[in-house]
Each structure stands twice: as structure tokens, then as C-alpha cells.
């Protein structure tokens, strides 16, 4: 029963947040709504017993992608003075969202203790003797190891590509030459001068 209640809560908030992502006038607000949607999606994943994907959603989407979006949005020409002027008037609203998120996190953790929702149709049986993080690892590193390694090569190619397309040797840059630094003799670099008082230094 409580699972069902939680499901509808997460689902409704997620859909509403998704709609607000599109309708928000201010792009920064759009991104913040997107983060709310991601959090609720993570809650839904916890409900069906996929803690790994839930964690992934929070870490990857909220932690990396959404922050990246935020950076991009901030590159856009937005009048921040105007935004800050509204901070106090937005404060109750922001607190409300924070409270909703907090309540959802607490609820999600509580539901997780109560066990997952039973889905009607499952293509494959769920292994009962291991956690789903363990199950994913067991599949990824045995049956799909070949593709896992190939995916690694794809990332390597992406890295080579980024370097090939952007790296250029600039002239006039002073690179570090460690061998030269180590070869350097203190005698060549430091000169002791017995400086008479009252005269200028001769360099």
C-alpha cells in the first residue's frame, strides 16, 4: 500500500517537474526542475528494486550532466542582477522544493526497507541470491566483457579525437624541460657579490 502511494507521489512530481522544465521562462530554473525530475526518477528506480540505477541517476545525471547544463546555461546571456533581486521573493518557493526533495529522500529510504514493488511482466527472472549491483557486475565482466572492452576503446578513440582536433603546438610557449632543470648548476645561476655600501648594483 505504502509503495503504491510512494509510486504515485514520485511519478506525479516527476511528470510535473518535467513539464515545468519545459515551461519555465528562466533557463536556470529549467535546469533546477530537471534535477528535481532526476531525483524523482531515482526514487522510482528504488521502488522497483534497482538501487544501482537509482544511484547512477543521482551521481551521473544530477552530479555531472545537470551541473554541466547549469554551466552551459550560465554561459548564456542572463541578467544575474535581476535574478538576485528576486532571491528573497523566491526563497519560500525554493524552500518548498527543498522540503519536497527531503521528504522524498526519507520516504525512498523507508520504502526501500519495505521491499520493492512487484512488477507484472518481467522478461528475465531476478536473481535472488545477489544484490543488483553485484548482478550487473557479474554480467558485465563475464558475458559482456568483450563489449565492455570494446566500449573502452570507443572512449579512447573519443579522447584521441578530441586531442587531434584541438591540440596545437603554439610557438612562444615556455615548456618545462626537466632534464635541463636537473642539469643546472648552482654555480651558473647564483653569483655572490661583495657589495660595497653606497654604490649601485651592477647587473
Amino acid at each position, binding site marked *: 500500500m505504502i509503495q503504491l502511494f510512494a509510486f504515485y507521489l514520485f511519478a506525479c512530481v516527476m511528470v510535473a517537474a518535467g513539464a515545468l522544465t519545459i515551461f519555465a521562462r528562466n533557463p536556470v530554473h529549467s535546469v533546477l526542475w530537471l534535477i528535481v525530475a532526476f531525483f524523482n526518477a531515482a526514487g522510482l528506480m528504488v521502488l522497483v528494486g534497482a538501487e544501482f540505477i537509482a544511484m547512477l541517476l543521482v551521481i551521473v545525471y544530477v552530479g555531472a550532466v545537470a551541473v554541466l547544463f547549469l554551466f552551459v546555461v550560465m554561459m548564456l546571456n542572463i541578467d544575474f542582477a535581476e535574478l538576485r533581486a528576486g532571491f528573497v521573493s523566491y526563497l519560500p518557493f525554493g524552500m518548498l522544493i527543498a522540503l519536497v526533495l527531503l521528504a522524498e529522500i526519507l520516504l525512498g529510504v523507508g520504502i526501500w526497507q519495505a521491499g520493492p514493488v512487484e512488477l507484472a511482466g518481467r*522478461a528475465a527472472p531476478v536473481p535472488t541470491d545477489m544484490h543488483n549491483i553485484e548482478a550487473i557486475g557479474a554480467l558485465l565482466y563475464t558475458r559482456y*566483457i*568483450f563489449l565492455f572492452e*570494446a566500449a573502452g576503446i570507443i572512449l579512447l578513440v573519443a579522447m*584521441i579525437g578530441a586531442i587531434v*582536433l584541438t591540440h596545437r603546438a603554439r610557438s612562444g610557449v615556455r615548456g618545462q624541460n626537466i632534464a635541463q632543470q636537473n642539469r643546472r648548476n648552482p654555480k651558473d645561476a647564483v653569483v655572490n657579490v661583495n657589495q660595497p655600501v653606497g654604490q649601485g648594483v651592477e647587473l
Partner: protein
Amino acid sequence: MIETASLLMTMPELLLTGAGLILLMVATFGGDNSARLVGWLAVAALAVAGWSLCGLPSTGGEAFDGLYRADAFGAFAKVLIYVAAAVSIVIAPRFFATGNSGIGGAIRAEYPVLIIFATVGMGLMVSAGDMLTLYVGLELNSLAAYVLASFMRQDGRSAEAGLKYFVLGALASGILLYGISLLYGFTGSTSYTGIATAMADGLSNGELFGLVFVLAALAFKISAVPFHMWTPDVYEGAPTPVTAFFASAPKVAAMGLLVRVSMEAMGSALTSWQQIVIFVALASILFGAVAAIGQSNIKRLLAYSSINNVGFALVGLAAGTAEGVAAVMSYLAIYVVMTLGSFLCVLQMRDADGNPVEDIASLAGLSQSRKGLAAAFAIFMFSLAGIPPLMGFWAKFLVFDAAVAAGLTGLAVFGIAASVIGAFYYLKIIKTIYFDEPAGEYAPAGSTLESALIAVSAAIIVLGYLLNPLLDATSKAAAAAL
């Protein structure tokens, strides 16, 4: 657990990946001065990988629980891919080194490395036994291809080509993934055999949607007609050796992939995909022929020519029989030789200062200044047009023969009629070379290697019938493996 047999069956890919990683190290520490060395080592690696194909990688069967299929079909396609990749590596240094008015500068050492990794991806594509392998292979190949297209980054056209290819390619990848997810959702499996089993008892609507999306995305990769828009721009903008690569190796890989997916995974839904393939084939043949007529840039013209040729190859697939598949494989083999030969000739097009030119009009009078090059150009154009004594005719004959045998006489008749339209623009080039008033002077042949490669390709096109028993036997064996 990883079995030794699986590793042995994937030996060509493992060898090439290892070689790619080592060559990357050589390139990093050797700098761009080592580019030629890296290039030749890459060619050696391709040769070793090709040699490793005889044995388990061409006969082994399923590796890694059916993710990878080591059979004669994959081996046949891989030989073509390796040859095309090796040629694209060999011809690159001279193009990048000379006469790009300071745009390209010397070749950079990453070029052969990227081609090697693209080749690994193409090997995965043609040997895929699972939708996941298909996707990973396709992405590996595409990602390397995007970078190669914009390799001359200071050149505006090259950068434009890379960006266009990337944006449209990403869209196609998205479509492909969506199709795969539909197929997985409605059949409960990503493996070709699993999908085939699920499709055997009638095709549900969801499966049909998945099939259409997958075919649409693959049509993009082979640049068949409703999804061909990127081809002329990318082929024109990319550096010529890269264009030669795009027109040969990835075409073979994507075509092999399409044939394997259609025949193995969706074999029982033949009637559903047959109409799609027939439409795509007809549209590609007709559009490729008509749109090429107005072109004045030789690389653009060859791009439309490749669209046209893909249409002909699809005629063989539309037959849906083992003969049809064998015809497609033979077509691809001959197509690779013709295309590489044509692009080698394009590489020879340099004005008196040694700068590359791409205007068809500048070819005028070539028959007087460069007799050998003019003759080779004529041979490749006649062959692409399908004029009888040359191999291009034999390729077209095989696919139409297979189509007629499968009862698609209408398709064959239409295809032959459209190939006459296509012959017009090929013949126009020959007319420009032989009968027009000489335009500008051309630089003399600068590289014996390129001349030798042109001579070999031309010889294969003219005397290829001597190789016919070999081609016949191997393509039949490849088709029988599906």
C-alpha cells in the same frame, strides 16, 4: 569465464586493437615525424590481421556466447575492409604533405591509428551476432570517422564535413538505438538468433516498428537514398584519402552488417523488409544517377556514384536468397576496387604547382598530357557505368541475375534502365578527358606507389574474369555461412 576459443576467434580484432595501442605510443613519443613509420606499421598490422583470418576466425562459429560470429561471411568482408584501410593509409602522406597551400601541413601520426581503430569497429560490425555488438562496432567506426572527416582542421570545408557527419551520424545512432530497444522489448532478446526465434511466429507491430527503425539507421550508414543527404557534403569536404576510405571500407562494413541483420535476425520477416529494401534500392539507383549529372566537382560526383552503387548492391539483398547475398558480396568486392581506383586517380589530379584540383572541367585534355592516367580514369568510369567487358558489368549482372531468379523481374528491369541514365555522367567524364580542348597543365605523376596501385586496380578491373572462380567460390561460401 572467457574461453580461449573465443579469444582465438576474435584474433583479428584483438591483434588490431593491440597494434593500435602500440602505434599510439609510437605516435606519441615519435611525434609527427614518425607518421610514415606508423603508417607502414599499421599496414603491416592489417596484413597480419588479414593473415590471422585463415583458421578459426573464419570457421569458428560463435564466440562470447553468440555476441560475435566468426564465419566465412565476416572473413570475406574483413578482407575487403583491410585492403581498403591499408590503401587509405598508404596514399595519405603525400596528399597531406604537398600542395595544400599550408592548410594541411604534414600528415599527423594519429591518422593511421584512427584508421586502425575504425577498422576494429568495422570488424565488429560484420561479425556481430548480437545487437549490442552491432551498436558498439558501429559507434567505434563512426567516432573514428567523424574525426577523420575533419582531420584537416584548418580547412573550413573539412571541419564542416566533420561537424555535419557528426550531427547526422549521432541522429542515426539514436534512431538505431531506439529500434534496437523496440526489438529488445518486443522479442525479449538482443541476439540475432533470439530475435529470429521470436519473429518466426508472426511479426508483431512493435517488432515491425523496431525493424523499420533499425533499417532506417543502417540505410543512413550505407548512404542509401532517403537518408543520403550527408554523403555529397562529407565526401567533398573530407580530405581525399579519407573520402576514399569512407567510400570503400565503411560501405562494405555497413552493407555486410545490413545483410547479416536482414538475413539472420529478420530472415523470417522477409516480406516485411523486402519492400523497404526494394524501395531504398530503386530510389538510390535513380537518385544517384540523376543527381550526379549536374555535378562539377569530381568528389561530389563520386559521392553520388557511391549512392547509385549502394542501390545496385541492395538489389541483390532484395532477392533475399543465398544467391542474392553472394551477389552482394561479389558486388562489394568489385565496387571496392573500382572506387579505390577512381579515388587514386582523383589524388593524381594536381595542377602545375602541385595543388590538388577537384574540378571535372580541369580534366579536359588529360589524354594528351597524362596518357596512362587518362586510360586508367576511362577504365574505372566505364567499369562504374557497367560497360560489358569490364568487371563493373559482371557485378551488376550478378545482382540482377539473383533478383530475376527470386522473381523480382520488374526491379531488375528498372535497375538496368536506370543504369543507362547513370552511364551518362560517367561517359561525360571520359568525353571531357578525351575530346575536350586541353585546359590547364597537370603535374606529372609524383609517386610510383600510387601509380602502381592504379595500375593494379585497373588490371583487376580489366582482367578480373581470371579471378572469377575465386570470387565465385568465396562469395558463395560467405553467403552459405549466414
